[in-house]
């Protein structure tokens, strides 16, 4: 498409097709079909986790399609003393859009758009119920900050679903380096002036060594001052609770019907879109982590309940197939590695 504005005749052609019985779409999909999705993890070797995702890429010449690159990077932050760190670590998400994705937008409009996307992604993923347990390093001193950066390379419609899927895949792929705290001990009973704390960062909780001598000795807890990486070459362990990251499903609404995975032209013909961010079996069967309407249509409360119900079904499908694909990716990469 040269531009996203379309004529009234095109708009009504698309809408009539959605509402027809049986419904028909420009590319012959049914209302609830997705285009083909291509996914690859571990694409950015300098990041702790990364993924590249494309919806609707032409399989032959690679043209068209919405393409998103997402990468997670971990950094150490000081807690207190002017550091930005937060006890237990924090997450910050950014979405940036390549001008190539929106060649017709001015740079100000592009900034607004990426700000909107950043807000939606950041607000959803930084919610405390999703917070991974293993982002702390030293209690009260140091913690990881996880920067998740998503770059929209090309937009051919349904960019929110793509961003969330890519984000989930990148976070799934993220490995947190194992750390071991280093402790400087005061001279005690003629012992060594300096000793190393021993506790190896194990599963889940590895923030502080607790070489307990006396449970009431509060100094003990504060003595660890720094940390080291026991094994530089070790990739580390996956982010805790990586199954919990939500997926997003965009319901494109042409009253009284709705459809999924709109192309850019279809989006231009859709007055109202509803984004639903959902996660499953964690620990509730379904949890809604976010919901947002885009566009200027209106919905009744009853309709929202209905859409939520339908959205739950679609999102579970995305969830299941994305999980299967991510597991397959992990297997493939293990296989790759065992070759060496």
């Amino acid at each position: 498409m040269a531009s996203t504005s379309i004529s009234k005749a095109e708009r009504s052609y698309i809408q009539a097709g959605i509402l027809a019985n049986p419904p028909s779409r420009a590319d012959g999909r049914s209302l609830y079909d997705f285009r083909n999705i291509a996914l690859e993890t571990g694409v950015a070797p300098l990041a702790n986790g990364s993924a590249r995702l494309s919806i609707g890429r032409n399989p032959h010449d690679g043209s068209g399609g919405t393409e998103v690159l997402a990468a997670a990077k971990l950094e150490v932050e000081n807690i207190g003393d002017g550091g930005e760190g937060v006890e237990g670590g924090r997450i910050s998400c950014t979405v940036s859009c390549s001008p190539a994705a929106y060649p017709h937008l001015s740079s100000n409009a592009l900034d607004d758009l990426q700000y909107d996307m950043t807000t939606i992604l950041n607000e959803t993923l930084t919610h405390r119920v999703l917070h991974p347990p293993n982002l702390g390093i030293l209690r009260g001193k140091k913690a990881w900050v996880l920067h998740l950066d998503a770059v929209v390379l090309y937009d051919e419609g349904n960019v929110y679903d793509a961003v969330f899927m890519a984000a989930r895949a990148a976070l799934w792929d993220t490995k947190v380096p194992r750390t071991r705290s280093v402790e400087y001990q005061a001279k005690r009973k003629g012992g060594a002036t300096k000793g190393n704390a021993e506790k190896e960062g194990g599963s889940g909780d590895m923030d502080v060594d607790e070489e307990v001598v006396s449970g009431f000795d509060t100094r003990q807890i504060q003595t660890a001052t720094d940390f080291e990486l026991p094994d530089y070459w070790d990739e580390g362990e996956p982010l805790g609770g990586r199954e919990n990251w939500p997926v997003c499903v965009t319901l494109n609404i042409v009253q009284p019907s709705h459809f999924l995975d709109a192309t850019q032209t279809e989006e231009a013909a859709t007055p109202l879109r509803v984004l639903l961010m959902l996660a499953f079996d964690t620990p509730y069967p379904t949890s809604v982590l976010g919901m947002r309407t885009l566009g200027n249509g209106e919905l009744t409360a009853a309709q929202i309940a209905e859409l939520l119900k339908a959205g739950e079904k679609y999102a579970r499908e995305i969830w299941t197939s994305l999980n299967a694909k991510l597991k397959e990716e992990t297997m493939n990469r293990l296989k790759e590695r065992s070759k060496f």
Partner: protein
Amino acid sequence: MISFTSFPSRFAESSYDSTRHHPNVKDDLMDLDEYEDFAAQGSLNKLTCPGESLTSSQAYMRGHGTYVDNEEVIASVAGTIERVNKLVSVRAIRSRYNPEVGDLVVGRITEVQPRRWKVDANSRQDAVLMLSSVNLPGGVQRRKLESDELQMRGFFEEGDLLVAEVQAFFSDGAMSLHTRSLKYGKLRNGQLVTVPPILVRRLKSHFLTLPCGVDLILGLNGYIWVSKHVKTNEQEGEEGFDAEAVYSNVNDDIDDSTRNAISRVTHIIRVLTSHFVPLTDVLLLEAYEWTVEHESTAKDLLQQEFGDALVASIAPSQ
């Protein structure tokens, strides 16, 4: 339905079996004495790329896609060398549309300005459609009035698609269009496909009607309009002109089978052009028959194997 795949290996095609030399060592492929060669070779599609010397500027004239430096004609785009008598030009394989007077184009209104519309036609600049170059209601040849100027959005507004002919060029190279024919005007009842302009060949007619009840307008600028077949009342002239219908934004009723046929044709065009096969009426018809024969729905064409099979049946040696 949702399915995941993997990306094809990005650099699968790059070859590392070729030997690399120091730039001073010429590869055998390079022609050292191109001047002699040039006259000898026919109009075979020989490929070149910018900075390549083609011939001497004393014996030949430079055409598009070339420049002269130091008495040499040098290519400035990557593409095929074309020679007509003493004129040498290079035609880029992929580029924006280069208009010529008389070309049929499909365009989209981007802006309404005083007494003119700006039209995106996939060219280096937006084309211009003057208010004086469209048919006005109430007779083709009447004078335009001030009231026409005030209701220009009643004829065409931003986003509208139209089919028009290239009338002339302005001094800066922008093209001017006209729709002063009953065949031209606003487009309804269908959808647009965009393809690289080189894949739309010049045909006897760019208005095609496929027997499945689908009309096609192959714009030479690479914009293709696929729509429901409308019976044209053959009467030309002022009586046939109905302003209501010509500038209407409302679609006719389109039945399901026509809708299916439209999406199927759209898909065939997408598949063929993604394989970089130029479109002709015969080819499209053959491809359509093939898909009907194989009882495929438009959805099947989304699958790569199916698309490949289609192209293979059209161009067997591919």
